[in-house]
């Protein structure tokens, strides 16, 4: 709900584990709101829903959030910390080995910018850093808000490969996009949203 106006209504959706779901729709259709709801970032005010066994209405959203990874289309980091420091913060918070940070930066092609403060990275590099953040976190549910934005062609190919690995590893991916993926060979299910409702599951 936003100032009494429902952001989402009539959303009836089942997402299976280890699948890729693409939420499509025009600007303002409710894609981001749906992803935030699934991640426990926004509260469900009426209706019912469960994600990873946790009730969205009265379950422990903090517990749910620990199990999801979020990649927003804005920056996702402390701007005055370097790429490495941001990832180390996440690793330490989750009691993951800090040694995984270097491997994650290497994998997304940012090893050479590890010491650069995040605010000095380009939009595409920040997007790659966001992916590295998720690699360090290894969440069960990946929620990716327009992940292909700001990525060049090489980045898109890399990202498709990464998603394939993530899905093979048993994680579930829900991503938003304006349109269905054009280039990807990944098997996916499309959910089309219009005006806060699912129009075509």
């Amino acid at each position, binding site marked *: 709900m936003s100032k009494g106006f429902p952001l989402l209504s009539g959303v009836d959706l089942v997402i299976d584990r280890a699948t890729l779901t693409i939420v499509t729709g025009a600007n303002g259709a409710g894609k981001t709101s749906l992803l935030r709801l699934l991640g426990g970032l926004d509260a469900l005010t009426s209706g019912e829903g469960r994600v990873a066994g946790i009730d969205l209405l009265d379950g422990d959203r*903090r*517990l749910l959030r620990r199990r999801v990874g979020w990649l927003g289309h804005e920056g996702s980091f402390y701007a005055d910390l370097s790429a490495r420091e941001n990832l180390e*913060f996440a690793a330490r918070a989750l009691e993951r080995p800090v040694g995984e940070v270097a491997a994650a930066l290497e994998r997304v092609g940012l090893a050479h910018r590890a010491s650069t403060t995040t605010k000095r990275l380009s939009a595409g590099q920040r997007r790659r850093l966001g992916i590295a953040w998720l690699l360090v976190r290894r969440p069960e549910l990946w929620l990716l808000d327009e992940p292909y934005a700001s990525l060049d062609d090489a980045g898109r190919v890399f990202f498709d490969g990464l998603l394939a690995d993530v899905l093979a590893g048993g994680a579930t991916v829900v991503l938003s996009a304006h349109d269905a993926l054009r280039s990807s060979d990944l098997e996916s299910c499309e959910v089309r949203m219009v005006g806060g409702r699912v129009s075509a599951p």
Partner: protein
Amino acid sequence: MIRIAWLVATKDLRIEARSRVLLWQVLPFGVIALLLSGLALGPTRAGTSTLGPGLFYLVTLFVALLMINRSQALENASGTRASVATLGLDPAGVFLGKALALTIELWVTGVVLLAGSVLVLHTDLLHSLQALPSILVTLAALSAAGTLYGALTQGGDGPATLLPVLTLPAFAPLLIAGERSFSAALQGGALWQWWVIVVVAFAAYTAVGVLLYGVLEES
């Protein structure tokens, strides 16, 4: 909780060291405000020294409000809030960490402003040093209260401009006790009753913060 508190505090202090907002923006503002206060009151040594504690805490209040806003703004930068939320950090640890970092920043500010008050307002150096412990405890209490109220005004759609209005009732007893304690140190009066107020307030705001910070974050 302690592990998260340390993690958050070191992160905030590292950001501060990197951005140098305290060094190049907040401290100069505080020193200039102190200098202008001294100039407004005139150069008469006796006249300004009796007003020193009040002016010191007035400028400290301005600086503290800036630092509290800055501390909370770090967490509310575009996209950061959602990403950090998915780390599921213990809110009590986040509160303690942010309050600790803010305390250290305000301690640095307090020492600089105290030196400034000796130079500009001509407060007695030795007596000012005697007041230093009470100033440090008062600033720690301001940090605890400020971190709590900062989360209240920065979270969700709360406008940050509400911070001065909301914090004033919480800060007023601390500022009065701090000023009285500082004055007592300068004039040789009894300090302990003011210490009690500040220490109790510090403990109360810390306890409330540990218990309620998560609720404020969620709201």
